[in-house]
């Protein structure tokens, strides 16, 4: 398990939080965002190896609410796109 905060293009082949459909669950692999913000997301429960499930979104489809560790947290798609999921 590797944590990377480098800003680079998202690797093709990785699914991200933004690809989850409603009620689908995935395991976080890593967060591709500046350290400062990645830390806040980790404090909220978006940690490598942890399960995250997609819940309802705003009527327009963005932002979406995610279920993590028993709480619900709303994120924009542009943020969710940088949280990579573990391959099954």
């Amino acid at each position, binding site marked *: 398990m590797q944590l990377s905060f480098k800003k680079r293009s998202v690797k093709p082949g990785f699914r991200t939080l933004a690809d989850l459909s409603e009620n689908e669950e995935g395991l976080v692999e890593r967060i591709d965002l500046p350290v400062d913000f990645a830390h806040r997301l*980790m404090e909220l429960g978006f*940690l490598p190896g942890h399960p995250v499930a997609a819940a309802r979104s705003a009527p327009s489809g963005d932002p979406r609410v995610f279920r993590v560790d028993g709480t619900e947290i*709303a994120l924009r798609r542009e*943020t969710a796109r940088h949280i990579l999921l573990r391959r099954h």
Partner: protein
Amino acid sequence: MSDCHGCGSGPQTATRPARATVHRVVAIVGPPNSGKSTLFNRLTGLRQKTANFPGVTVEHHVGKAHLPSHHDIDIVDLPGIYSLNPRSEDEQVSHDALHGKMPGLRRPDGVILVLDATNLSRHLTLAANILSLRLPTLVVLNMADDLHKRGGTVDAEALANELGAPVVLVSALTGEGVNAVGRFLTGGIAVPRPVELPVLQDVPACRQWARQVSREAGYTHPTPPLWTRRLDSVFLHPFWGPVVFVLVVGTVFQTVFTGARPLMEGVEALVGWVGGGLRLMLPDNWLRSLLVDGVWSGVGAVIVFLPQILMLFLFIALLEDSGYLARAAVIADKTMARVGLQGKSFIPLLSAYACAVPAIMATRTIESKRDRIATILIAPFMTCSARLPVYTLIIAAFIPEKPFIGPLLGTRAAAMLSLYVLGFIAAVATAKVLKSSVLKSEKTPFVLEMPPYRMPTLQSVGLRLMDRAAAFLKRAGTVILGVSVVLWILASIPLVNGAAPPIEHSLAGTLGRAIEPVIKPLGFNWKIGIGLITSLAAREVIVGTLGTIYGMEPDKDAVGLQKALQNDLTLGGAVALLVFFAFAMQCMSTLAVVRRETGGWKWPVLQFTYMGVLAYICAFVAFRLLS
């Protein structure tokens, strides 16, 4: 760390008088929305604002603990934090207070760490940070009733042994278990053997530690809040979500406008009766004129609006306490993003419907400095409750009541609603301009924790309404009373043959007529002009001022304020006045808080000028179009 007096090295214990009461400071810390302020209110008997969304408390509050013994203990309520690495102004407050860097506040001698028991494994992450401060700490697992109701369990004693700090299960809302917190404050609680906490470098390590500790403490998660999911499937539904939103807003306006009528008429009758009584009781001299025509007409004209304002606050309290506000922020995020702001700006903007002052304080939760300034600058455009009396008075005088959209919305409520929308559009357009020019910045991420829905309690809502009523009456008794007295004096001099002059020849009338040329293009005469001058102090003062002015005109004494206005304004002028009040920055308290929060005069001066110019131009256009 179990020793309450050993929080410092050096000889100070030797110099301390042996039997003097020890003054102590205990800070309440914890993650956002864990119930810190509710506990603070329980412990101190104070009434800090509480609501069901993260980030309600944005500054520190100090209160004396209510304890039967003589202990002199200050309790400090702090904004919520996720860790000791602050990212926004409100988190900085907590960080500074805990490290003794807050001016005027001593470093705390102890800590009450409030964690949400229904969310323990996540909230324990903060415990590692707080316990490493090495202050005597009590861990409060709040919302214990909720945990048990939803089938979760935790062994407080086992957790205490794992953390090396006492742990108590509490429901701050019902008061259950709060006695134990009092015992901690007076040193009457058993403290477990201190443990060596691991040195935790990063968030994943903290989290792993928290997970292990909660496992050792036999923590089982409660079942997910089913009602929250059910309600969200309606409130965030692609079709029903917006429909419900529109229905809620429509109902609020209709109720605030028409539902409050009977109560307002009751208060109006009472005000009139008291005024008449005063007139009969007092001898006919200058004092009677001051009390009846000056003070009572001014203050009474404003007090009439108390039922309406309370009804508005009732709705705001229900929205805040139920948890719907956070959903509204999610729904609004897309729109906010389009103007360059984010959903988090939406919560301060919504609370600006009550009053811009707390709204501007609430912007402290916004991480990006530029977004925060932009939100501060647009907040006063939102229709605050001080505009409500002005709008109601003018709408009731000039717009006949007819059904507009069936029985749901009448014409008057619709007019009121459109003024609220007008303010919102001005806010959003201004944000767009600011964010694409002087306050341009990179897009900031939006992260918002969704609180579970809760049933608003009668106590919480009731107390809030009582506080609002007290604040409103206090303003009526100070600002409005003061302005009314000054105005009465200005309207009574210079004396002509030992008697008060006709109002247009008085000093107030002269002042009003001096500015008449400036406001004539907007359709206002000199009487409205006097109201515009006095309303610079606060918007609702104009209602009191008009009450005083018309109260002093003998021929119009019997006619109500509405009738008097119909004589003095055309429909175009009335609409222009509404538009002027929608845009102009007539509030000293707001300017003062903007200066404090932005740290200088630059932004408040800019804001005042911009809003004033915009108000003048738009009122002019409205008057031209309608006449």
